[in-house]
């Protein structure tokens, strides 16, 4: 590409083209080169769309739950939630009236939980969801396996 640019400048120096033509040619060369960055971006990992929670547990074997449900005690939970749904849910929190938040704060304080819900802004929770795609929880114990990830 530098070679083409040099040729344009050479033609300008020799008087074969005018300065305006040289400028147009160099601009055209720049436009040809510009599509390359999106190509590099397309190779990056696509943004995840779903939050998955997978729990496989053998714990119920022989206990009341296993017998009540007539199974072998193996339980499986497979949940897929669109991240967009989480965002929409979070945005709903902005509708909660301030007096309700104050009352919730008072109840939380009475229960010994010192969290000020009025300080919890929807944009903060949205940021949290934005970064959920980097989250991976993998718990593997003898009787249960829990996986939380984004896909």
């Amino acid at each position, binding site marked *: 590409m530098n070679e083409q640019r040099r040729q344009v400048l050479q033609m300008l120096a020799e008087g074969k083209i005018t300065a305006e033509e040289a400028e147009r040619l160099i601009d055209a060369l720049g436009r040809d080169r510009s599509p390359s960055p999106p190509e590099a971006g397309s190779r990056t990992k696509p943004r995840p769309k779903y939050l998955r929670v997978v729990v496989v547990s053998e714990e119920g074997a022989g206990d009341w739950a296993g017998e009540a449900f007539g199974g072998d005690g193996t339980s499986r*939970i497979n949940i897929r939630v*669109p991240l967009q749904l989480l965002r929409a849910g979070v945005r709903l929190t902005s509708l909660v009236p301030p007096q309700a938040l104050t009352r919730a704060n008072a109840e939380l304080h009475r229960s010994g939980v010192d969290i000020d819900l009025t300080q919890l802004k929807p944009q903060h929770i949205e940021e949290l969801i934005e970064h959920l795609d980097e989250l991976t929880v993998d718990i593997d114990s003898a009787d249960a396996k829990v996986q939380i990830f984004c896909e």
Partner: protein
Amino acid sequence: MIPRLVTVGWRPGDGRWRRVHVPVLPALLVLSPLLLPAVLGGLVACVVFGVSPLGALRGAGRLVWALPGTRFEIEQGRTAVLVNVR
């Protein structure tokens, strides 16, 4: 995109799956005589409790629009429940 099909499935102890496929748009049309008063009631409740009715409608719309792709599958031994929104 608005949900088009909701599949609710359950498997009782006998091990056989039962599935109900609910096409959302026809179901909404059928339920519209009930839905309209419900929405109006919701709007009145919003005004009473000091919540912006427009914001509530927009929030509910966003929530419904984001539903496709949701899947819940819970299995306990031979019994299971499945909810799938497409």
